[in-house]
């Protein structure tokens, strides 16, 4: 299958390992990955902070860039959530019904990685090998906006060598929330403290999730604590094989 990668600006700029892993994993499974040029940012942060006018050109750009492709994947639940649930709204609010229709179309063929693997490609065992103690944080937008359910866990359970441990109160938000982490830094930090407490309780070496943004938040806190626990994107675990060198 020919799959267009929507890398997301955060993974592109700060967490390329997650994006590279997505490419390597899909290619290993026999698919062709293309990277549509001209893609930048979906505008989620603008929409969620109250700047829909400024987001409009980004929505336009995103829709124009991805409209030609049949299947689009992103290593981020929240960016897929924005594309699927917010782009058409931004277009409608701007009075552009044509753009709204095209945005709906792009949204309907854009998948978060675990959705693509399980729902579209029908795979739960990607043949990965990852000999570490891992706990999984289901990010809010994957869980409640996209309803990915236990798809990421089904994928992780099939990874060879993994010691997967349940995260207590897993469905509680880590406190990131985009600009929430800045505008309400104290509350965000209090939420993060509890999330980190639960991660540490599990004794895991690695905390994984399907969103680089939440991982950046949890990882930033764990690093400040000098906890030794690493944050690793789900794609990187699924891309790991016994022959691939371990990276994080």
């Amino acid at each position, binding site marked *: 299958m020919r799959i267009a990668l929507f*890398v997301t*600006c955060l993974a*592109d*700029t*700060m*967490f*390329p*390992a997650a994006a*590279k892993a997505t*490419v390597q994993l899909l290619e290993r499974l026999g698919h062709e990955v293309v*990277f549509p040029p*001209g893609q*930048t*940012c979906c*505008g989620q*942060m*603008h*929409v*969620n*902070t*109250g*700047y*829909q006018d*400024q*987001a409009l*050109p*980004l929505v336009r*750009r995103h829709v124009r860039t991805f409209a030609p492709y049949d299947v689009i994947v992103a290593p981020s639940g929240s960016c897929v959530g924005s594309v699927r649930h917010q782009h058409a*709204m931004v277009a409608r*609010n701007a009075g552009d019904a044509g753009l709204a229709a095209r945005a709906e179309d792009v949204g309907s063929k854009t998948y978060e990685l675990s959705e693509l693997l399980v729902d579209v490609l029908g795979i739960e065992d990607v043949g990965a090998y990852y000999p570490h103690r891992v706990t999984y944080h289901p990010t*809010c*937008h994957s*869980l*409640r*906006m996209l309803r990915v359910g236990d798809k990421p866990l089904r994928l992780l359970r099939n990874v060879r060598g993994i010691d997967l441990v349940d995260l207590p109160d897993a*469905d509680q*938000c880590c*406190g*990131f*929330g*985009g600009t*929430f*982490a*800045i*505008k*309400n*830094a*104290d*509350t*965000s*930090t*209090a*939420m*993060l403290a509890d999330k980190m407490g639960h991660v540490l309780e599990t004794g895991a070496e690695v905390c994984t999730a399907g969103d680089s943004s939440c991982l950046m*938040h949890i*990882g*930033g*806190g764990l*690093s*400040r604590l000098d906890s030794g626990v690493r944050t690793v994107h789900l794609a990187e675990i699924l891309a790991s094989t016994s022959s691939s060198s371990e990276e994080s």
Partner: protein
Amino acid sequence: MTTFLGMPTTAPRGVGNLRGDEPFPAAAHKALQDGQLRRNLGHATTTIRRKSGAVIGELPDWQELREAGSTLKANTMARLPELLDQLEANVTAAGGVVHWAADANEANEIVTDLVKATGHDRVIKVKSMATQEIGLNEALEAAGIAAVETDLAELIVQLGNDKPSHILVPAIHRNRAEIREIFLREMPGVDPALTDEPAELAGAARRYLRETFLSTKVAVSGANFAIAETGTLAVLESEGNGRMCLTLPETLITVMGIEKLVPTWRDLEVFLQLLPRASTGERMNPYTSMWTGVTPGDGPQNFHLVLLDNGRTAVLADEVGRQALHCIRCSACLNVCPVYERTGGHAYGSVYPGPIGAILSPQLTGVEDNASLPYASSLCGACFDACPVKIDIPSILVHLRNEVPHPRAEKAAFGAVAYTMDHPALYTRAQHAAKLSRHAKKLPPPLNGWTASRDLPEPPAETFRDWWAKR
């Protein structure tokens, strides 16, 4: 305030309890310092989430009931003028008197005048969000009328000179030991040997209020539901204080928001299943009272219904935000909210705290008066899932964020970022510039909110698109 007659209008300033003294982040900062508050809230919300989840799980048709509740409320809002007319006619025919209050000031005036006309100077009250919203107790007090709160949690708040912090359990921020101390300090005639056993605390409230119930001739209540088709009002409660107020006095005055209406008697079969399970986590609350006007020989022989606007029509005017009027005040969104669980209700500044408060208060007052509330959420979406009438709170938060006045510097920054992101060459250049921030441990304001508790990630040696270009 001058307003165009007949145009939807927000709640007036200077009266009632819809506006806080400081923005949410500042109030939250203080609340977060209180470890006892955090423990009390964590304990209480965990308990209620577990109970509610269990009884919701017993119903095979919970999702269908939510859908019915949601569509019923939307249907009601679209037919509000006709249904209010019908309610008024049916209440009047059953011996009640209906009053219309355009805002808090008018409602307070109506109630004060009605109480004065009875010649009494004390009223007993059933817990009511509407009367808290309009600051009725303060207005009555100013007119020399004592208002006695009879709900246990309201009593704890009133005796403790405190403010309510939760829609359903206004004293949720207090644990049993604190409640015992408030009772020992403030409750006349309390047994000094009182322990902090919840049953004993409840018993103390029973003894304290009994004489007041028996001797007070006027009661003020809110209403959970009003049925247009029959003129019937319903109050759901637990303790029996509601039954006392609704049946013992000679005069009953009910203050109700215009959105509390349901079209038909049958519609209660939906809400009486949704509300208790979502709210207290019970299959049914201990007591529900329903009355239609006046029943000769049974209960108050004078019944007044005050229909309150106070900003509700302004909410109704917003096609996206009007869903907030569907709220049945169950508090489920508070109980699942990670922000509420940590800051408590006082930080929201309004009688409506938590996620529903973050969308309702700014709409009732106009967003400029509660501009920080739409941001008091990480948009995690737990509230939407918990809402028994499926109010899409996260979408309304995003919508309101688009309406609030934005700080100029922030607006400029977002504009610059959007411009950059819409020009791939600039974007690529900015990506490379990001590497310069390597090893930055502290960012300038407002971004220092991040680095106060979180490290920044190390920028990678090459971006994804650089790597891709080299393949």
